[in-house]
Structures are given as C-alpha cells and as structure tokens.
C-alpha cells in the first residue's frame, strides 16, 4: 500500500516482527512512523492499531497505511478494551515511563501477550562507564544524564522480578548486542533485551 513498507526493518523491530504470527491482532505502543505495523500488515496480514504521542508521527502512520491514535501511554490504555489484542508491543520505551508497572499491567489487560524491549543497563559498557565515574552514554542509551527521557533503568533480573511479582511469566527472552544474539552472560554482554510475556495460568 505504501512505499515505506518496502524498507527493511530496523534489526530490533525485525526481531519483534518475527515473534508475531500471521493474522494476529497487534497493538503497537509508541509506534513511531508505523514502520513495524506497516511491515506486519504487508507480510503477515496482521490488523491492529498504533499509539503515538507525536501528531507528526500520526500523519506518518497515515501515509504508511497504519491505524494510529494519538495518546499518552502514561494515561494508560483506556481507549482499548480487555483482551482485544493478541500481542501488545512496547519497544524501547518502558525505561522512559513514569508508570512502568501500570503500563505492563495495562498491556496484559488489553492483550494476551506483551512484547517489551529495553536497553539493558547491566551491559558491560554501561558498567565500565559507571566504574569510570560517569553515567553511561552509548548507542542504546544516547543521552546525557541531565537530558534523558530515561528514568527507570533496569537489568534483565530486575524486569523479570517485576514480572514475577505481578504473576507474569516470561515466554521468551532474547538479548542482543549490535544486531547479534547473546547467549553467554547476556546480562553482561547484551545491550538490548527482548521479552515476550503473558499472565501465568
């Protein structure tokens, strides 16, 4: 439908796309210009919506043929009904949210599964910069401490503990660095974490 959908997906979005089965109903939170949903619509016939805070991105989603509604995730997902999606995606945003726990619970209210990705604060380069006496600045954390939207840093274990506390089970976890999957010492060697989670039971 749109020329945008022919562009290759960013590697992290590609990994998320690989987790979505054909014809799924998908809600993409912080969907940006709609690249992921446009790709999923074209290649996997998914249906769904994006949520975006920036009106310029709403226009870009329109151009990409993606349904997007303007909204602030901090206010929750009141626009969406219980259990109305198969997958709800929150990509590299949870660390910048005030209502971290609330959004995770909201995602699993409106969706069967949630996909959450975030920069892993436990990545060795971050630790090294801290040891040198500075807050980390890197490819996945491209902000100075005084000018960062990121307010809730966590490492793999922290996120998993938050899930456990809320009766949420981890269905799948992938840790990446520079586009490569990290299996050995992921919390040290991985810069980006991908989780697929669902309510237990």
């Amino acid at each position, binding site marked *: 439908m749109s020329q945008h959908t022919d562009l290759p997906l960013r590697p992290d979005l590609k990994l998320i796309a690989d987790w979505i089965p054909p014809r799924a109903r998908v809600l993409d939170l912080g969907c940006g210009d709609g690249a992921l949903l446009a790709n999923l619509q074209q290649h996997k016939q998914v249906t769904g919506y994006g949520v975006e805070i920036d009106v310029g991105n709403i226009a*870009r989603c*329109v*151009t990409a043929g993606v*349904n*997007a509604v303007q909204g602030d995730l901090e206010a929750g997902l*009141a626009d969406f009904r219980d259990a109305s999606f198969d997958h709800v995606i929150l990509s590299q945003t949870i660390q910048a949210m005030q209502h971290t726990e609330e959004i995770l619970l909201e995602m699993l209210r409106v969706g069967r599964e949630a996909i959450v990705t975030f920069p892993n604060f436990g990545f060795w380069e971050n630790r090294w910069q801290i040891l040198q006496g500075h807050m980390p600045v890197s490819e996945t954390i491209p902000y100075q401490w005084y000018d960062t939207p990121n307010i809730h840093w966590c490492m793999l274990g922290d996120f998993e503990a938050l899930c456990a506390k809320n009766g949420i089970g981890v269905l799948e976890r992938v840790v990446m660095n520079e586009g490569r999957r990290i299996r050995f010492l992921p919390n040290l060697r991985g810069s980006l974490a991908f989780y697929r989670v669902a309510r237990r039971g």
Partner: protein
Amino acid sequence: MSTTESSVGIVSAQQALFDVPLDLACGKTLTSYQLTFESYGELNAAKSNAILICHALSGHHHAAGRYQPDDKSAGWWDSMIGPGKPIDTRRFFVVALNNLGGCHGSTGPSSIDPDTRRPWGSAFPLVTVPDWVTSQARLADRLGIDRWAAVIGGSLGGMQALQWSINYPARVANAIVIASAPKLSAQNIAFNDVARQAILTDPDFHGGDFYQNGAIPRRGLRLARMLGHITYLSDDGMGEKFGRMLRSGEYKFGYDVEFEIESYLRYQGDKFSDYFDANTYLLMTKALDYFDPAKDHGGDLVAALKKATAHFLVASFTSDWRFSPLRSRELVQGLIAADKRVAYGEIESTHGHDAFLMTDQPYVDLMRAYLDRVAQEVAA
C-alpha cells in the same frame, strides 16, 4: 505555491430541485425542496473522486473560491480546499451544499412555503442530521455519485460525516470527523439553549413568523452569536488576541464598549444578525442537540458503528472546550471497539473550537497525509 495557484478561483452556486417527498425524523414530510450547492474540480470518469463537505452551525455551500474577483473574503474553508491544498481540487471533485433548513439558498424557514405562498417561519419542520444525510444522498444521486471518496466535516459537519458512515456504509469510503462528538454533552446543550432563549424571547421573533411582520429578531441573534463565539475561542486564544485592552486606553465608568473583546463580540454579533436567519439558528442548534446515533442502539455507540465500513480520520484540538478532545476520544474508542480503521490526531492549538477552520501546521499536515492516501485509493 502562490495564492492564485491555490485558489479554486471564481465559483458560482447551483440549485437542485427535488420533488420526491422527504419524510423527516420529526414525523413531517417536505413535499419538495431545493438544495443549493457548489462544486470544485472535475468528477473523474470512474466517478470515484468525489468529496462531500458538510457545514457546521452557521456554514453554507460557499466553501471555497470567490463569486467576484473583488469579494472581500473567500469561501469558509478556502484554506483547506483548492489546487495544491489538502483537499486538492486537481485530484478531487468537491461538493459543498447548504443544508435543508439553512438560510443561504436551500429550502429553509425563510423560504416560501408553496402551500401558503408565505415564508415557512414557525411552520418549517425541525430537521435532523439523519434527515440532512438523506437529502445529501439524493443530491449525490443527482450528481451521479454512488460513493464518496470522503465525507468531511467539522463540528456539526463532522456529525454528518459520521452519520453518513452509519446510514450509507457502501457510499462512504472515508469519513473525516473534525472537532466533533458522537453526541453533545449536557453543557453543550445548555449553551445551545441559552442561545435559543435569546432568540425566542426577542420581541421581534413573533413566534418565528417575524417575516410577515417586517421584523428581524436582531437582538436575540446577536446575543446567540456572541455567546457562541465565546465558546468557540479558548481562554488563552482570547487572552492573546484581546487581553484587557481598552479601546480608549482608560476606564469610562459606563456600559458602552470599553474592552476590545466587547467591541469584537458586538461586531461579530451585529454582522451575524445582518445575514443569518433566526429560525435557521434555532433549527441548527436543535439538530446538534438531537444528534445521537447510539440512541437507536440502546445507547451503545459501538453497536451503532458496527455497520460502518469507512476508514475514519478523527481530529480534535487541545484548547477546544465546546467539543473537547474527550468527545472525539469517545468516538475513537467506539470505532476501535467496533474494529474500524481509524487515525486520531489531538492537535495542539490555541484556537479553541474555531481551530477546525484554521491552519495550525500539524492539522494541515495530518489532513494532507490522510487525503493523499484517499487520492491514492481512488486513483485520483
């Protein structure tokens, strides 16, 4: 793009007469009626590129262009309609009409009732948004348009776009609903009633039959418009434009015009009472109040929207408190729950409800992006 390039240029109004009786929601029937409309651009061979513009409370069919080169102002939505503009007349065939009950050439309370050969006045039936949509569908038939590429409207016009999508799902590809609501709130109805009371209690109103008395309920209309105008602007916008500015720079300790805002409102009220019909004003506000497509579905908006097949663009403006973003969001939630295709933009603006007639850049960009896609869909 220069002004001349992006204007539809010189336009003229056309009339369409209908003599098939129109049964109205109020139970009465109009045996015949006339609709006045304008069109801009060319209908393509497939007749797939037509767009219907629905007007708001005080609007009409003159949406773009000028009648004479030296007309002081262009049509009411000239900023949005024209060559190279979001509603691009190089791609679309655009139709704008004056609704039934109006006072700009379509049959309304100030028209002559063929049975009595006198102005309809109080005898003119109340018409509703669904009635308008039925009459607009007949105009579409007349023009050979089976399916609108888009039906577009702001405020009361947005309600018509929404009603089209429900009543004629097969005839609307896209519905663009701007600064509107799936129904009015109590507060909004309350404002309408104060406006109506201003008119109804004007001694020159004569129960609606003022025409034969050679009277015009000017005071009522003026007050109604002044009140309305306040609610169409935002506190911030009004503050920016007028603040506490005084016309003469000092207090006069009297009741004449002193503050600039008073001057502005009185001017707007006077101007309006010169050209607008009091009965039309009453009728339009009732159409607003009655609008509630969920009512036929036990109050369930989602059920009402189920039938729609159009794609939707819904837009609201942050400082609009007459049709607040929450009301648009109510519609968006209904559309999502009904599993409809929808884009929603909540546009930052200080222009209040009037923002739908303005050109805040994010608004223009969103309209342009959406209508580009509409044009692609219909290969215009």
